[in-house]
């Protein structure tokens, strides 16, 4: 434990800025993955254990597009659009068959696809790790804000993720499609009886979830190494986020992810040997005091 370092940091604006942005970066990427997970659970009532694979595919798609076109924007687009299509196909062909099935069955199907997707990546891109590399536009000196260090690329990353959160939040609460999705989550039988194609909604939600995870992967690709199986650790942290925030809650995913990011960035200063443990400890505290998560609704 190193409480002095933590206290020292909290009293210095430079350190505070650096560590807070560092927490926001970790949190925002986590949010993009977790929000898809929570959205899919909220509407489809399926815990998508293969969600990490979309993060992985997003990163690989982005890297390949970047190598082919040398355009960062196209790389991001490829990461997001590619995984959206993949999500739609995955839901329509496989997941839609196990909606009514036992949880264990759903879990097994998802787990099988974790392994299959990892092997697909291994076959296409090879087993060794890859790196996309930082686009030249972002290879610049970091900004110094109140003495703290903030890389411009991370500002973009936070901005994109925040934009996604806002669009998603407003879209779901205000737009007609959003209302239909929420209705389908609440009572799919009634929505279907009103003549709305629930299959399309389910597929669309899965594609949206996959797209967000893919976007996270694409945004992370310039700074993280790409390996088959890279989705797994992200998936575990996303689960912690959804459990803390409440399964099915988008606001919960956002707050949960940001809290987790901040716990990591400040925890590594004050509790360098217990940073990981701190996340789980926080999850346990939330679960004990509020079993549905911070923003989860009580079970009906």
């Amino acid at each position, binding site marked *: 434990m190193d409480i002095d*370092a933590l206290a020292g*940091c909290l009293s210095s604006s430079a*350190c505070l800025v*650096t*560590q807070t942005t*560092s*927490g926001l*970066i*970790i949190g925002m*990427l986590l949010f993009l993955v977790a929000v898809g997970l929570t959205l899919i659970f909220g509407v489809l009532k399926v815990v998508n254990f293969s969600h990490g694979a979309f993060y992985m595919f997003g990163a690989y798609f982005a890297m390949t597009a970047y190598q082919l076109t040398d355009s960062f924007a196209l790389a991001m687009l490829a990461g997001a659009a590619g995984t959206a299509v993949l999500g739609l196909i995955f839901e329509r062909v496989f997941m839609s068959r196990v909606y009514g099935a036992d949880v264990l069955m759903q879990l097994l199907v998802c787990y099988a696809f974790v392994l299959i997707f990892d092997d697909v990546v291994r076959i296409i891109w090879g*087993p*060794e*790790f*890859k*790196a*996309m*590399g*930082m686009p030249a536009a*972002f*290879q610049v*000196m*970091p900004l110094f804000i109140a003495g703290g*260090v903030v*890389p411009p*690329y*991370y500002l973009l990353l936070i901005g994109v993720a925040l934009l996604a959160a806002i669009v998603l939040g407003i879209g779901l609460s205000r737009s007609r499609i959003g209302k239909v999705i929420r209705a389908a989550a609440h009572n799919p039988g009634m929505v279907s009886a009103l003549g709305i194609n629930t299959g399309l909604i389910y597929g669309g939600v899965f594609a949206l979830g996959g797209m967000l995870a893919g976007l996270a992967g694409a945004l*992370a690709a*310039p*700074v*993280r*190494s*790409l*390996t088959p*199986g*890279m989705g797994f*650790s*992200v998936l575990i942290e996303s689960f912690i986020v959804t459990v803390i925030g409440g399964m099915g809650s988008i606001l919960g995913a956002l707050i949960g992810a940001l809290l987790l990011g901040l716990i*990591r*960035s400040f*925890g*590594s*200063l004050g509790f*360098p*040997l217990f*940073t*990981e443990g701190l996340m789980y400890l926080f999850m346990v505290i939330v679960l004990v005091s509020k079993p549905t998560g911070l923003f989860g609704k009580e079970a009906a």
Partner: protein
Amino acid sequence: MTRTRTPGISRRSTLALMGAGAMSVAAPWVARAQAKTIKIGMPTILSGRVAQLGTSSRNAVMLEVEKVNAAGGLAGRQIEMVIRDSKGQPQEAARVARELVNTDGCELMIDAEASSGAFAVHEVARDLGVFCIHTNSETSALTADPKQHIPNAFRTARQGVHDSIVGGSYAAAIAKAKGLKKWATCSPDYAYGRDTTAEFTLYLKRFAPEVEIISESWPKLFQADYTEVVTKILQAKPQALYSCLWGGDLTSYIDQANIYAMFGQMEVFAVNMADYTALTVVKNLPKGIHSGNRYIKTFPTTPENAAWGDAYKAKFNEYPTNWSWENATAIMLMAEAAKKANSADGKKIAEVLKGLTIKCPFGADGTVTMRGDDHTLVGYAIGWGTTIPQEPYVPEVKAGDWKTIFELEAEWKKSKGYT
């Protein structure tokens, strides 16, 4: 469901069992009767996160075995390699090793496992008495600890303590020249990371006593994001950083530290940087990272080493790794020992191998020696240098001094109670 078969052993399965029994008794006899080829078993890691290293071990072995076979084989017997995947799991490595000897009839063994698996295979070698060369485990205790010593096992991998002595003295010289007193460390949180960092700092402080470690970070192995570690180190404002992160973890770390412009703010010592697996993957390799040599075709700067690296690249379309040279050396030593003993018998090879010096492209002076008293390789090329973003990546490597290594190694062994 109803059961249709009666329990117990049927006539058919009894026959099948008998047949199988007869086969397994007969098979080794057939193999021995022919005795033209000699099988060498090799458990290594061919799947999972470090599969690339296992594959590069296999490649290097095959490259050398081809040469030995073309020159007449091992004491007149053609070598047949039997290479199996251990998936990097120690219990699987031990099982595969046992199977290679007992079922496949392998008479010699190359153990191309990482440290965890190597200790397991070592016990199999102890049990079966089969001749075995450990090619990849760098954990010093494998050969330094007399409790591990068996007459039939050797090691052709570099040794952790050698690396630490050379790294520590190299870093200390730079620390003194540039006045680097405040150091930070950042290494993966498992046995290798902890031990290697401890040994490095031990020798760094020994050669430069004024050095102080002001910040330590222990990210998880295979951690995806290092941002909090990077910013923590930036806060501590050290003058130098040591890291033994490797592979994809190291490249992630570099990419993430790069956008914080970290490499301009401190001297960075990353022992595992100068390996082609990392060098060729990092897109924006910062200039001036200090690294130990792993395998690099420009060190030692001899035509033999360059030719070996190029031949490997030509055949496999990628550069060799640290594990490649260690495995190639095993075959070179084995071939030379068999020639001297005029036999492919494991016991005879082991006898000759003790203290054997051979010409080798990876030797510091063009030769390497299998030290007789602890069965480990010495005299291999070992050094540190700084990186540049394109080939040859590490233009100048400062070679470690083997005289100093021997002195400090002897002292280290004494402190551990090994001698």
